[in-house]
């Protein structure tokens, strides 16, 4: 198929960017979206032009590196997939595809389609852990039974890949789905209880400091999340936050 691509090009963080048009022929349905971009880049390199830079790594939907806004949607039109797992069979011959970086104040553009998501790391550093030494001298893993339902729900929250689609989808560029996924994972497990109060307060504080907006319950994040992280997590974080505040 033949495609008309409108791609955001930006030299670096301090230079203004713009949309550039490209036409690409010979795209097949079995190609992934990123393989389509590989072909475009191969053509650009052969012409001596600089290829379009985009973040990607595992190309199997788990590392959370790829981060494209495709026709206005994070990770494109398909549901429950990252950009690397989006296949060209979702598009038709003659389509125009607009490709931009994730847009958010807290995710500044580094180059072309690459953004800086280190704000996410800093939110995790503020409290996304259990303070246990890694000496291995803990209790036997089966000492505390955990209700299967809770364990499964904790796992569902923990599957967040930190890609930032939730932020890119939100009109307020809120990181509440991301932050709440980690808060929830630990809130649901007995091991997470000890530091629950400080954790939620510290993580939320950092989230605000980074310049992410607030949640207005539109639910766009849940729809666009490639891992289907549920909005329930935000409700749980709000509850945790409220009780933490009341506890002081």
């Amino acid at each position, binding site marked *: 198929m033949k495609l008309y691509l409108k791609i955001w090009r930006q030299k670096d963080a301090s230079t203004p960017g713009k949309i550039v048009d490209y036409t690409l022929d010979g795209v097949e349905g079995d190609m992934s979206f990123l393989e389509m971009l590989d072909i475009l880049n191969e053509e650009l390199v052969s012409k001596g032009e600089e290829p379009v830079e985009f973040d990607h790594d595992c190309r199997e939907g788990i590392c959370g590196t790829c981060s494209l806004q495709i026709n206005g949607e994070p990770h494109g039109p398909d549901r429950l997939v990252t950009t690397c797992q989006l296949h060209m069979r979702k598009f038709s011959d003659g389509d125009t595809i607009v490709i931009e970086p994730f847009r958010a104040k807290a995710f500044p553009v580094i*180059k072309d389609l690459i953004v800086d998501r280190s704000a996410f790391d800093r939110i995790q550093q503020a409290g996304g852990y*259990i303070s246990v030494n890694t000496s291995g001298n803990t209790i036997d893993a089966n000492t505390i039974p955990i209700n299967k339902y809770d364990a499964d729900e904790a*796992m569902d929250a923990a599957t967040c890949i930190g890609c930032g689609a939730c932020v890119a989808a939100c009109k307020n560029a809120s990181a509440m789905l991301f932050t709440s996924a980690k808060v929830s994972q630990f809130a649901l*497990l007995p091991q997470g209880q000890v530091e629950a109060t400080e954790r939620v307060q510290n993580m939320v504080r950092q989230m605000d400091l980074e310049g992410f907006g607030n949640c207005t319950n539109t639910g766009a994040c849940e729809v666009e999340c490639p891992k289907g992280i549920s909005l329930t997590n935000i409700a749980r974080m709000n509850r945790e936050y409220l009780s933490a505040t009341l506890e002081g």
Partner: protein
Amino acid sequence: MGILDSKIPSGPLADKWTKHKNDINLVNPANKRNIDIIVVGTGLAGGAAAATLAELGYNVKTFCYQDSPRRAHSIAAQGGINAAKNYQGDGDSNYRLFYDTIKGGDYRSREGNVYRLAEVSGNIIDQCVAQGVPFAREYGGMLDNRSFGGVLVSRTFYAKGQTGQQLLLGAYSAMNRQINRGKIQAYNRHEMMDLVLVDGKARGIIARDLVTGEIERHSAHAVVLATGGYGNVFFLSTNAMGSNVMAAWRAHRKGAFFANPCFTQIHPTCIPVSGDHQSKLTLMSESLRNDGRIWVPKKKEDAIAIREGKLKPTELSEEDRDYYLERRYPAFGNLVPRDVASRAAKERCDAGFGVNKTGEAVFLDFAAAIERYGKEKALTSGIKNPDKTTITELGEEVVKAKYGNLFQMYEKIVDQNPYKTPMMIYPAVHYTMGGLWVDYNLQTTIPGCYAAGEANFSDHGANRLGASALMQGLADGYFVLPYTIGDYLSDDIRTGAIPTDSTAFEEAEQQVRDRMEKLMGGSGIHSVDYYHKKLGKIMWNKCGMARNEKELKEAIKEISELRKDFWENVKVTGTVDSKNQELEKAGRVADFLELGELFAKDALHRNESCGGHFREEYQTEEGEALRDDENFKYVAAWEYKGEPKDAELHKEDLVYENIELKTRSYK
């Protein structure tokens, strides 16, 4: 040759590690504050090591090429992690895990190292649960297990099909805690360009900031390389696009021996290649072999009809199917080790029974499992005389709960519903058992340079068992390295900070700059990917699942020519002093072009078949691997001498005091 001292402690196998920990030197907590350690790579091994070392009090700097430590490729491991907990009461023990690993590795790994791995495996699970890793649980609240290839017990712990992700996020959270305390400085989007040696000791690295292009000097008292494997030398592999051998290869060029480079794991259950545009291959977890049955048609005409789309696999009757693993290996069936399963698939496809349009795929079929689970579920749900549709529905539910995310991934990529029609799979490069040679302390042949996880060669011999990579990465990082590195650093308590303005750093930086200029200065005929793909084809065709003398010799010649061509004619766009993904790729491919040749040289010299290394000249009448313990019971460690062809072989003889060497049989 004294240099290849494995430093295995004396004494009975089960006491070695404890004895060693009691004997080695320690660094007191106050002195740890004056010691710096660089950790390159933040996957399971690197992330775990960085967190633990920082927690002990050392000043740690981590480096990763990804934008966050959480994205290291350990994250993609699906199936699980082994531990000899014996929660299932099925006869598991440290010894059995040790034995299975040595046997699975086809008797090419060290007894001492492997026993230590088995010994600390239980701790890993305790540790991860304490960190909040949400492992799968049974209804009673206890941890659940499943079984993997090459073993007869259920010792694999898992978190859906995302075990690697959860374990990595555990290590990442431990790192975050130390970053928050200021004990780890994380340099993300940084690539190690070279290792710096001062007076023969590893004292730092030259790194490139991948965003600004700036070249930086970083010093430390010791350097840990936890940079993963080199499967991407094949271009197509299940590794991440960025996975590379640069750090290990730079260390090799500076004096670290490279061990058993030809020991590469070709994983049997990957999604087959669909066309020339393919950039990477996707693994389907080995756990699927718990329930999936592997088959091809018995008759060639049926295989052809399926390939041409004239026949559906579901239309083929049981009698017309060849469940070749169950036929050849009745004891282990579909759960034979990976090397055996991969070769068996290749054998059937080479014989003309492949089932996709390229003829390079076999079926992995869940119909029987769906029916079995469906009947069971109907029974426990109190449904009497369920009809076929109900059974299928119930069975699909059970299968979905077990492997749902894998099935979804398959459907997204292949556009077929694996609940209704069998999956198609084919072997792909997945893991490299070879790597930097290390002693029992995980130290390379360069003092102060350590290697952990997939980057070292130590524990898996010639073939790795499923769910053992995660175990080894975390064992090295959490429980081995933090002890052993202290023994070395105890000599450094009075050294003080290592200056970065020495000649050693200056020269190393200059070499890095020169090399980048040289890469940019190619005549500009072909792209980096052009060379990488060419290299990959040579590797896959001549150094892949089956190797022979003639083709290996050809491979050596072709790779060396390709390397020459690359340096003369590669085209790298952009500039050195800015974000430049083409330049990043070029540096990595340049090193693969050297490693590839050494790989072939190693495969050529090893005149035997063992584990993942199958030499066509050395096989039994039934086509099984023919090992030669008399002549090849050693680790081949290669010393850099300029061109890969000049690399010098050093042998570390493998001593088996506790296990009797046998021909591996899974029949």
